[in-house]
């Protein structure tokens, strides 16, 4: 990962860790509430401006299956980013998984659930490969997953062939895509279960704690007996498997697979994790933030597409949401806040500079 030299330098002053940690916890909490308010405002706006968005609540719920694949991907990616790494290969992994699952079912004639299981195992293996190369050779994850992204997408294209299969069994479609229990779509249930799992994993288990510690302070993690390599490899397995689940959900929603469906989902999922308040350098953040951010970003696209915007406009708005969100977050956040306030102070008045510096030391 690339560091932020500007921020480091501007912090300048020795950091009081205890005060920092206490401040941080409350800021994380505040951020989650900011996101909740943001989501509320967003849903209100779209309900008022876009006809048919609300649909008595059920319209909105069923629309969620249009974006939950990205949300699932973001959950897996959050694990890796918690550990201070990044996984750029998840988009290609989603494409590859959809294709492999479909081909196992279509060409090999396997039962579709068996095909799904085999695909998930394959994804776990490839995720472990990512993690293994990163930890064994000590190469940055940005680089390794950039490379494996290229490789996975080539393999996906090769496996898919001229006309990738479509028309999956009805039971499969019901469970992974189009089905629903009352007004709640099946995708939402899958997402809820996975989100609960990841949330508990990160906050309540030994693994989750060591994962966050690895992201927060790797030497400290090593000295306190955490197997850093193994922790990282499991994080990459997690992100790969979640990407595979997302790929299979896409197959279920569209009742078809393509070799290029996953790649465009990479950037939104990074956006979600970062907007959700997970520090890109690792070690800080909350899964609840990621979950809410994924719903915010998802409904931005649903709402705007409903209103007749083009996909590229949607991406642009998502980018603006990310920038604005981050600027707010950083100005809340202590370390980045110093950089931001310093800069503002320098732009406006001289006496504020002194004030900003003093308040940052307290």
């Amino acid at each position, binding site marked *: 990962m*690339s560091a932020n030299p*500007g921020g*480091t330098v501007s912090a300048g002053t020795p950091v009081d860790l205890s005060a920092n940690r206490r401040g941080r916890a409350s800021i994380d909490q505040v951020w989650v509430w900011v996101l909740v308010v943001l989501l509320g405002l967003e849903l209100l706006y779209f309900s008022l401006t876009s006809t048919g968005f609300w649909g008595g609540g059920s319209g909105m719920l069923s629309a969620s299956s249009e974006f939950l694949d990205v949300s699932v991907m973001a959950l897996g990616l959050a694990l890796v980013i918690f550990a201070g790494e990044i996984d750029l290969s998840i988009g290609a992994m989603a494409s590859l998984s959809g294709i492999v699952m479909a081909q196992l079912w279509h060409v090999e004639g396997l039962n579709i659930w068996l095909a799904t299981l085999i695909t998930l195992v394959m994804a776990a293996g490839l995720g472990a490969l990512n993690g293994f190369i990163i930890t064994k*050779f000590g190469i940055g994850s940005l680089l390794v997953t950039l*490379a494996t992204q*290229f490789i996975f997408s080539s393999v996906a294209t090769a496996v898919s062939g001229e006309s990738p299969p479509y028309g999956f069994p009805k039971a499969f479609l019901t469970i992974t895509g189009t089905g629903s229990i009352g007004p709640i779509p099946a995708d939402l249930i899958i997402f809820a279960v996975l989100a609960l799992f990841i949330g508990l994993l990160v906050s309540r288990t030994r693994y989750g704690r060591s994962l966050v510690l690895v992201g927060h302070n790797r030497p400290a993690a090593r000295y306190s007996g955490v197997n850093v390599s193994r922790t990282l490899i499991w994080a990459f397995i997690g992100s790969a498997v979640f990407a595979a689940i997302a790929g299979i959900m896409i197959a279920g929603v569209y009742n078809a697979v393509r070799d290029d469906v996953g790649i465009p989902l990479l950037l939104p999922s990074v956006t979600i994790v970062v907007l959700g308040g997970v520090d890109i350098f690792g070690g800080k953040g909350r899964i609840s933030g990621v979950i809410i951010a994924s719903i915010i970003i998802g409904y931005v696209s649903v709402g705007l597409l409903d209103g007749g915007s083009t996909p590229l406009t949607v*991406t642009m708005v998502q980018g603006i949401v990310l920038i604005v969100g*981050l600027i707010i977050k950083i100005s809340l956040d202590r370390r980045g806040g110093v950089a931001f306030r310093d800069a503002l102070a320098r732009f406006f008045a001289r006496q504020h500079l002194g004030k900003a510096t003093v308040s940052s030391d307290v």
Partner: protein
Amino acid sequence: MTATGQALSYLDQQMPGETGEKARSRLVAILMRREVQLLVALLLMSGIVDVLRPQFLSSSNISFMLAGSVVIMVVATGQTMVIITRGIDLSVAPMLGIAAIAIGFPAQNHNLNIFVALVLVILIGIALGVGNGLLVTVAGIPPIIATLATLSVYGGLQFVFTSGLTVISLPHDYIAVGLEDIVPGIPWLLLIGVGIVIVAELFLKFTPWGRAIYAVGNNADAAYRAGIPVRRTLFMTYIICGLLSGIGGFVYLCYIGSASSTTGTDTNVNLISIAATLIGGTSLLGGRGRPIGAALGAVFLSVADTAIVVLRILPIWEPAGVGVLILLAVVTDRQSGPATRRALRTRHHAEVAA
């Protein structure tokens, strides 16, 4: 005695009468240079493919491959500077695209003068680079996230500007720049690319601004304490990267002859420029790398691309090839790193002793 002191005294024992050894270690250091490795790999690959497909090294094909590398060469030069500062710029693709369409439409509809177009892309590139620079330095957003956000925003702007239209026909002088050779085998575009790489090399090596870029990438804190304006340096770097992406858009327009709302993004300029930079020996950890390496990386990728086509390997394997190349580049770099450092330390010690 400190560990360093022990290491130095160990070198002391090695030193007397070891001039042959010294010369050899210097040779090793040269051979370990990424630019040299790349050149050797490039010649080997071209030679082998030429044996298999004799037309491969014809002057027209060489010209084709060199011209095809220039877009990435120019963009990767900017990317190299950003990566030297430990940053990354994921928004080069839409910056290139916006520049290409911003001059493409006036050129198509109003026969815009080509020199005015060049000035225009530079200004546009600078403006877009300022956006990235502000987010990274003033707002303090990590570069990967800031440029990820501007990738979306600029991509959207590009679409808004085109309003779904495509540039399809250009005045003759643009096409001439894009397609004609100075002498057979050397296209005009290459002149632009090589000129930019040379200027960038000189800038990085001989100006205080250029050296500040390395200093900031090596250790921002130390650079700050040494009186280097860290944030201003970073800001400048992102502007240069935007500027070069803008020129990349100009080159793209001349070479391809068309531009649309997805220009740049659809040919994966972001990742390919990063790949060329890394293959060229620039370290993601900052402080190390050269534009000339990135340029050779761009040529290497272009030649590999063409080789895949003439060898009738399915083009779907081309991305996989790029991926494997990136991994190879990094793994070999890690092996050569310590050896180079050892060689350098020996040389340094010899100079001190002399």
